[in-house]
């Protein structure tokens, strides 16, 4: 799996991508594959302020419950209702339509400190 180079990644298997002044956040293809069939997603309300590494939601597959951690601090500006209503979208389009939330970052420098695609690929390899 080649991970898109247009975004950054975390060790919690989330991706973060710049979109205007917002950062879009989702889970990686590795995460959806490890989880298996995703059947439930819980996301924060718009306006909630998140700290870096704070739990902002939950992804559940048939077998597992997995917390979502915010890759950086900021205010939630959007949550993806489409994926809440169709959690399996995460399995079909983890890097695309199944984005989870958008954040207005309080410290944009945090974004630069995240892993790039190459580093994340190396990290995933190291787990095998």
């Amino acid at each position, binding site marked *: 799996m080649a991970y898109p180079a247009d975004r950054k990644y975390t060790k919690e298997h989330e991706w973060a991508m710049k979109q205007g002044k917002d950062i879009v956040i989702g889970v990686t293809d590795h995460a959806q594959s490890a989880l*298996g*069939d995703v*059947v*439930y997603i*819980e996301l924060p309300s718009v306006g909630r302020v998140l700290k870096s590494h704070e739990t902002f939601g*939950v992804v*559940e*597959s*048939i*077998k597992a*419950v997995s917390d979502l951690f915010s890759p950086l601090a900021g205010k939630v500006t959007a949550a993806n209702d489409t994926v809440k209503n169709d959690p399996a979208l995460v399995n079909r389009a983890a890097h695309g339509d199944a984005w989870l939330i958008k954040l207005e970052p309080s410290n944009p420098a945090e974004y630069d400190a995240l892993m790039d695609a190459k580093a994340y690929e190396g990290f995933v390899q190291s787990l095998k």
Partner: protein
Amino acid sequence: MLKRTALFEEHQKLGGRLIDFGGWELPVQYSGVLNEHTACRTAAGIFDVSHMGEVHVEGPGAEAYLNYLVTNNVAKIEVGQAQYTAMCNGRGGIVDDLLIYKRSSGRFLVVVNASNTDKDFTWMKQVREQSRTRFGAFTLTNESARYTQIAVQGRKAQEILQPLSSVPLAPIKTYWFAEGSLLENVPAIIARTGYTGEDGFELYVPWEKGPDVWRAILDSGKPHGLKPCGLGARDTLRLEMKYALYGNELSDETNPIEAGLGWVTKFDKGDFVGRAAIEPIKQAGAKRQLVGIKLLDRGIPRHGYAVFGADGQERVGELTSGTMSPTLSIPIGIAYVDTKSAAPGTRITVDIRGNKLVGEVVPTPFYKRPY
């Protein structure tokens, strides 16, 4: 080092995702839990259940011994018949739930849960030692390492297996079995039993013949939509039937009455281990009961979550299992609740990460096969 079944390499070839399941390296899934679950519900699924334990109980005293060991009435089953039962300790707690197959007069195959095999065998020996004078002679041998056990479950199971079987399958009724051969020369116990709620068979063949039989069934089943199914689908399939899973619904501390196993606990058969503790519970009524619940709110109930009354204040029980039902597409669970909250239709709430989500006690099984 994890134990492996004879089918380990087959699972690898099929891309199974292998996990540690009670010390066994077994596939949790191949193509995906939902896909496998649906295949079993609409066509057929094949499962490696070789980790299950098999104990032979043989001799003139075997029947009397088993009838004292377990809660159901072993004297009621005929040659060729299988029986589901519980085995209890002296306090009425469930040591295990198991299947007994009567192979001939005085010859029984006892099939127990994988993770309990050693505990069960020790307990079975202990009961024999303590009560030796009650029974005639018999032998007790743990033959678990000699069997490959394969379950083929689903409405297409008979059609898939018939071409491979020396015996006609249609006459085998539910909870009966035949001894014959598969692939012409593989001796097999072919039982119409299962853990999915579908029609289907459980096959017992010699350990080393497992891969041949497994591959032949996969080939025969391909045109019928048969899929290999892992432990994940096995769990969701049994949960939709409210079949108990030892370690979740059953333990050494739960009694058969509260666990909904009163129907396999027979007080008219004479004494049995645990009877003195269980009979008063039966007479007084269990304090709590194992029930099916569904959530009306969005969320997934899971093992260990607390159950509260409709007002969310009074704690009335705890979830033992839960999932998103693949067949019904609603969140379902199994829970022990106080008897006053056990009637179908009772509103309850489930504490999920601090939120009290609304649910309801419902009649079970959750799923009934449509044929």
